[in-house]
């Protein structure tokens, strides 16, 4: 398998640059980053490129390989045809510093604006108790290695510098989601914050971010869509919704405003295959909310599978889609306005009335 291969690498800085051709030795089992290292050691000692771990753990070596955002250290040469030219360019969404290195400070600024974890006031260190099922949802998002591939691929900012001010990007939507789902986080406004301050509304669920995530985090299905739910309830998945209706026939619907779970045990204990949502299983405030008729603890099904086509991709344009617009993020079965019984709403004076 070894032999010379054709590479085209973007060289330049913020004032401009172009693709340069290199013929490089490639050996069996190598990845794109190996080839870049070989170039540094031979033809191009000053070729700028970030890397650290060489094992897909640090998220430093993000680049665009044949136009697709990828980790250089996890892209095996054997995935290309033997005489295929490999083109490597810097991340498009961020300003170039030099060669393959871009200025990713945008991401760190957005990270700094996202409100941090709020520890519960009355739990001492060492006394935190959480169930594995309850931490797992947040743990999925904490796998993020901050490679910013999802950020670079997102069309909202990829070619729209002007949106950067108002849009935090998928990486920070899942940060908000992670905290929203953290069993002990003391803040309750993560969703509202994402909508109001992070620009969640710009996202129209194209799923490109999920597609490039090297950690295979289901950014859209498990992060963005549940965050978009806000006060709207979870009826975006017709099957699960129907199933839960049948299953619960005769019981009080979990979602209606009247279902205050007064006196019930901690929700975490009695949960089946469904996950809790927001707040947390050991959170006293959640109980209080439930008392006032707002049930942030209602059980939510796993998010729906998207309406993908046979290539597994979401139809992005009307040309290839069977409807006249992008699919609704809430699923096709939801009509607006929503029926009032599916809204979580507590009237400010409801307690006084009875």
């Amino acid at each position: 398998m070894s032999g010379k291969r054709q590479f085209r690498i973007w060289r330049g800085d913020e004032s401009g640059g172009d693709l340069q051709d290199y013929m490089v030795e490639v050996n069996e089992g190598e990845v794109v980053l190996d080839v870049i290292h070989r170039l540094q050691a031979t033809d191009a000692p000053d070729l700028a490129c970030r890397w650290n771990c060489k094992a897909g753990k640090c998220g430093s070596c993000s680049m665009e390989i044949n136009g697709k955002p990828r980790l250089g250290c996890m892209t095996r040469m054997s995935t290309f045809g033997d005489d295929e030219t490999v083109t490597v360019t810097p991340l498009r969404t961020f300003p170039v510093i030099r060669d393959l290195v871009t200025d990713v400070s945008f991401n760190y600024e957005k990270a700094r604006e996202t409100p941090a974890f709020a520890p519960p006031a009355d739990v001492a260190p060492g006394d935190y108790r959480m169930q594995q099922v309850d931490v797992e949802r947040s743990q999925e998002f904490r796998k993020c290695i901050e490679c910013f591939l999802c950020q670079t691929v997102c069309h909202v900012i990829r070619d729209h510098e002007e949106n950067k001010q108002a849009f935090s990007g998928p990486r920070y939507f899942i940060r908000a989601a992670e905290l929203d789902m953290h069993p002990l986080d003391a803040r309750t406004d993560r969703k509202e914050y994402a909508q109001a301050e992070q620009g969640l509304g710009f996202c129209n669920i194209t799923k490109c971010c999920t597609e490039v995530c090297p950690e295979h985090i289901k950014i859209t299905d498990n992060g963005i869509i549940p965050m978009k739910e806000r006060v709207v309830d979870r009826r975006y998945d017709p099957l699960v919704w129907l199933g839960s209706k049948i299953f619960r026939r005769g019981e009080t619907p979990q979602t209606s405003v009247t279902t205050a779970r007064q006196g019930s045990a901690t929700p975490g204990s009695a949960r089946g295959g469904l996950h809790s949502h927001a707040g947390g299983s050991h959170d006293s405030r959640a109980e209080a909310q439930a008392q006032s008729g707002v049930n942030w603890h209602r059980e939510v099904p796993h998010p729906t599978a998207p309406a993908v086509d046979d290539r597994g991709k979401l139809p992005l344009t009307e040309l290839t889609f069977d409807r006249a617009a992008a699919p609704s993020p809430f699923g096709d079965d939801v009509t607006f306005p929503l029926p009032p019984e599916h809204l979580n709403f507590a009237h400010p004076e409801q307690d006084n009335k009875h």
Partner: protein
Amino acid sequence: MTTTTRIERHHYDVVVIGAGGAGLRAAIEARLAGKKTAIISKSLFGKAHTVMAEGGAAAAMGNVNSRDNWQVHFRDTMRGGKFLNNFRMAELHAKESPQRIWELETYGALFDRTKDGKISQRNFGGHEYPRLAHVGDRTGLELIRTLQQKIVSLQQEDQREFGSYDARIRVFSETTITELLLDGDRVAGAFGYYRESGEFILFEAPAVVLATGGVGRSYKVTSNSWEYTGDGHALALRAGATLINMEFLQFHPTGMVWPPSVKGILVTESVRGDGGVLKNSEGKRFMFDYVPDVFRKQYAETEEEADRWYTDPDNNRRPPELLPRDEVARAINSEVKAGRGSPAGGVFLDIASRRSADEIRRRLPSMYHQFKELADVDITAEPMEVGPTCHYVMGGVEVDPDSGAAFGHVRGLFAAGEVSGGMHGSNRLGGNSLSDLLVFGKRAGGHAASYADGLTARPKVAVHEVEAAVETALAPLQRDTGENPYTLQQDLQAVMGDLVGIIRREGELADALVRLAELRERVAKVSAAGGRRYNPGWHLALDLRNMLVVSECTAKAALERQESRGGHTREDYPAMEPKWRQVNLVCALDGDTVQLTRKPLPKMRPELIGLFDRAELAKYLTDEELADFDALVADAGEADNR
């Protein structure tokens, strides 16, 4: 020179060099003490080496086995380090790590849980009970992200209070420190460059915490990243501090051996902790043949007993696959040498035949992923090929155990994490590093803050020192006759790998010293092509002198220590020698040359040495020390009778 070179100046109370676990924890502590703190890192924020740690952080919380406590952890640590550890550091570490881990939960960390909702703990080599707090096999990522996010939360506080995120704690990422600046024997500041622009930057600060990690890039087969060029070790030496235990390098027994380009990348020990076994090309579980006498009592003799241990650890002894790393690495080395290796020159690590595919994917997700993507091997179906890889340096800056202040003749310098020495003795137990970072990071940050508080006048940076630093930094760019830095690095790696590797011999070590001296001449004349903006060739050229001086320390100390212990194996002196246990080898810099001196180890306090059996101590201590121990026990006995 200075008139033409723009130098950005900053004033801080505490400058922390390094943004791994140790550096971030130190910075948090200094900021909480009200000091204006800077964090400096060679790579982006959140990418430091700590991110790669997989298995977990050791802390005797006793969540899984309630018999665990700090005494047991202390004993394991001392045993693992073959009693060469600084006992006080091992004691502080064992006592304080549970608090440091719990504290992380208040910063937002989400560890895996036990059934009753506590932090789950897993088995690891050398630890008597399940002790490693973990998150799948990405514990380091969780640790660094948590600390990173804690720093963000402190910055948000400052933003609310002072209107600026950077008011009291600021991160300088992709910034490399090349020199510490002194005022007499006091630290006055640090000098470096922004990688991005190549511009210089000067930090004036009375207290500096080194948290720069290790030295692994001096070896070709290593699990370490490009950052590990021993900068902190070298900065400390040049500032007048001392290094200890530099002969002890940990070769992790299980690195990937195929494909060649990823050779060295780590296969976490959790694979063995969760049931994986080592086999040679004949299919034999060979580790049973390699249990050394000192460990005989704790390890199983038959496969049946070893297998029972996973479910019933109280009534069975542990599998020999979980021996400390140095033992396993040597065993693999011998099997391969004896011609029983795998096709790519390692041995087989098999978990596929022992656990269900589902369980493997759940417990070892990133290993599954790593092998799938890098080697195209499905670890749920076939065994992995593994071999030893340079992983961790036990040696480092000699520090005061309680405060992390560097010894030698320099004040205001502190060190924590992998760059400091003493805590792990001659061999580190897996999982003890992540907790070490937190325990001693906090201590170093706190003591650096109080040192800064206690000063009446701030030390001053001398102009000529800055000029000299600028000149040294620019030199490789101005020469065009010297050698390519990449060639020099390869040559250095060849010397260290071939002559100062896992198994060492006197002749080879002496030879290594000669070659390092030759390399020193060549490195002094290195030249880098290109300009100052993000030029990796230039960066490497500057790192080379650090790698070189640290390699010299390692080779010198390895030649001096005529015994085998932990991460130092001499073919010509294969036995462990009680006399050598009393000796630390200390490196200092005299002008340009490395000076080596012997220094006695501090004596363990009676209540600590009393935690061990006499029979066990007899394997490590000299006869005189044992007599002292007997006298101690007799005294205690009398006191009880009285």
